C-alpha cells in the first residue's frame, strides 16, 4: 500500500460517511431499534473499513459493505450484553434479519429509511436544541465536535445533549416511524423549521464574531435536498430549499471590509452567487407551479424579487408588499408585520412604514429583537427625525450579541452623530 492509495481510501471513506451515513444508519435503526447502538456499530464498521479497504480495495458498494459489517458488530455486541437472556427476542429478530440480508447478497437497493430517521430526530417530544443537534449528527452525518463548534458550545455539552436526546428516544419509546396521516402536516412543519433553524444559525449567527457560518448553511441546504428527494411531491419543501438558496446567494456580500454587517441596501451585488440564484429561482418556479403557496414559498418569492433587482433602487417594493400581505395571512406574527412595514417604507414613504409598526411597538416579543429597533431607527433616520433615530440605534446596539451587527449599528450611529 502506498500513500496515494491510503489517501484515496481516506477520501472514499470520507465521501461514504457524508453521503451514506444517514442511509446506512436508518437501515441499522430498523435492524437494532436503538439509535445509540446503531451509531456505535456504524463507527465500528468505519474503523474496520479503514483497516480493510486499503488492503482489499474499496468494495463495489461501500454502503452495503458498511451495513453488513455494522450488522455483524451489532450482533456481537448483543451477545456480550449482561442481560442477554432478557433481550433474546430482540436478538433473534436481528439474527433473522441478518440472515435474510446475507442470503439476498445485499446490494445498493436496501430500503431507504431516512424519512423515519428525520421524523424521529425532529419529534416534538424533543427540545428544539436537541432536534437540531440530532438532525445534524444523525441525518447530516456531522461529527459531534463540528456541531459543537458551529453552535459555540463545548464538545462535552454537545455530546451530553446528543446522549440525552438519544436516551429519551429509547426510554420514552419515541417511534422510529413516519407520522400518522392526521399528524403529518404539523410534523413536517417541525422538520422544515428545524432545517430552517440550522440555516439561520449559519446565515445570521446569533452569537460570535463571524457573521455567516458556511458549513451550517450548506448543511441545511443538503438536508432540504435529501428531504425533497424523499418527498418529491411536496412543494413547501422545495419552497424552503429555494428560500435558503436565494438567501444564501448573498452570504458573501453580507459583511464589509471591517467585518460589519452589510444590509441589502449597501451590498455589492457582484458578490451575489449567481448559480445559487438560478437554482433557487428554478426550484421556486417548479414549487409555485405545483400550487398551494405556503409560507416558505412566499418568502422565497420575496427573496427572488430582491435577487432580480440590479440595484437597491430598482427593487420592486410594491410586489414585495403584496407578498408580505399574503405571508401575514398565513403567519400573523409581529416579525412578519415588521418586515411588511419596512417594505412599505420603501414602496411608499418612511412615515408610512413607521405608522405600520405603531401598533406593534408595544409588542413584548419585539422589545429584545434587534432587527425591530434597527429597522425603526433606519426609518426614523430616513424620515429626517435624527434624535429619535439616534435613540433607536442605541437601543438596537444594546440588544445584539453579534459583533458584526454591533459594528454596523455603531457605524450608523457614528455617522448620524457627525451630521448632528
Amino acid at each position: 500500500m502506498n500513500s496515494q492509495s491510503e489517501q484515496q481510501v481516506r477520501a472514499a471513506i470520507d465521501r461514504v460517511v457524508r453521503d451514506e451515513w444517514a442511509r446506512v444508519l436508518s437501515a441499522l435503526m430498523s435492524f437494532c431499534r436503538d439509535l445509540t447502538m446503531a451509531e456505535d456499530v456504524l463507527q465500528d464498521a468505519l474503523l474496520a473499513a479503514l483497516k480493510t479497504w486499503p488492503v482489499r480495495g474499496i468494495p463495489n458498494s461501500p454502503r452495503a459493505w458498511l451495513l453488513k459489517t455494522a450488522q455483524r458488530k451489532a450482533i456481537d455486541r448483543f451477545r456480550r450484553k449482561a442481560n442477554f437472556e432478557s433481550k433474546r427476542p430482540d436478538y433473534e429478530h436481528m439474527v433473522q434479519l441478518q440472515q435474510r440480508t446475507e442470503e439476498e447478497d445485499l446490494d445498493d437497493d436496501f430500503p431507504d429509511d431516512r424519512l423515519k430517521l428525520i421524523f424521529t430526530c425532529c419529534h416534538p417530544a424533543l427540545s428544539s436544541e436537541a432536534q437540531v443537534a440530532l438532525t445534524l449528527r444523525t441525518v447530516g452525518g456531522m461529527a459531534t465536535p463540528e456541531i459543537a463548534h458551529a453552535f459555540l458550545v463545548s464538545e462535552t455539552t454537545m455530546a451530553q445533549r446528543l446522549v440525552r436526546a438519544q436516551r429519551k428516544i429509547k426510554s420514552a419509546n419515541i417511534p422510529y416511524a413516519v407520522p400518522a396521516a392526521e399528524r403529518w402536516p404539523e410534523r413536517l412543519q417541525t422538520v422544515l423549521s428545524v432545517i430552517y433553524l440550522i440555516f439561520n444559525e449559519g446565515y445570521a449567527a446569533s452569537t460570535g464574531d463571524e457573521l455567516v457560518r458556511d458549513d451550517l448553511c450548506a448543511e441545511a441546504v443538503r438536508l432540504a435536498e435529501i428531504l425533497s428527494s424523499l418527498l418529491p411531491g411536496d412543494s413547501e419543501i422545495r419552497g424552503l430549499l429555494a428560500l435558503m438558496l436565494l438567501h444564501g446567494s448573498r452570504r458573501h456580500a453580507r459583511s464589509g471590509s471591517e467585518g460589519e454587517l452589510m444590509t441589502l441596501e449597501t451590498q455589492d451585488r457582484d458578490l451575489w452567487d449567481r448559480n445559487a440564484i438560478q437554482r433557487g429561482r428554478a426550484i421556486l418556479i417548479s414549487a409555485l407551479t405545483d400550487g398551494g403557496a405556503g409560507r416558505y414559498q412566499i418568502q422565497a418569492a420575496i427573496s427572488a424579487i430582491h435577487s432580480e433587482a440590479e440595484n437597491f433602487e430598482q427593487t420592486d417594493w410594491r410586489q414585495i408588499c403584496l407578498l408580505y400581505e399574503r405571508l401575514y395571512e398565513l403567519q400573523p406574527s409581529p416579525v412578519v408585520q415588521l418586515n411588511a412595514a419596512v417594505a412599505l417604507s420603501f414602496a411608499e414613504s418612511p412615515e408610512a412604514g413607521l405608522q405600520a409598526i405603531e401598533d406593534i411597538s408595544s409588542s413584548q416579543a419585539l422589545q429584545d429583537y434587534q432587527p425591530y429597533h434597527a429597522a425603526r431607527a433606519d426609518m426614523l433616520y430616513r424620515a429626517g427625525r435624527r434624535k429619535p433615530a439616534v435613540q433607536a440605534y442605541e437601543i438596537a446596539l444594546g440588544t445584539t450579541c453579534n459583533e458584526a451587527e454591533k459594528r454596523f449599528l455603531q457605524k450608523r450611529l457614528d455617522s448620524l452623530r457627525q451630521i448632528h
Partner: protein
Amino acid sequence: MQYMFLIYSAEGSGPPHGTPEFDTMMKGYFEFTDEVRQAGILRDTAPLQDMETATTVRVRDGKMDVIDGPFAETKEVLGGFYILDCKDLDEALAYAAKIPTANYGSIEVRPVADFGG
C-alpha cells in the same frame, strides 16, 4: 410499554361543580376510562382528593418529619393519573390529548421504568 399520565391543573381552573360544563367534563372522563378499558390497555387509574388533604413525609437522619400540604407549593396540582399500555410515545400522546383536563390543565406523560427486564 406502560406510560403514566399525570393529570395537573391549577385549582379552580376547571369547570365549577354543579355547572353543565362540569357534567360534560365528568362524562368525558367516564367515556375516556371506558374507551381505554375496552381497548384492554388500562393498567390503573385513580382520581385524587384535593390539595388540602395532602400530607408530606420526610425522614432525615432517622427522624420522621410530617408536614401538612403538598411537597412543593405550585399552582398546578396533581389531580389523578392513568397507567396505560401504549405501542409508543405517539400513541400515548394521542391518548393524553383525549383526557378532558388537557383542555385547561396539563397532562405529563412518563414512561414507567422497567427494572424487571
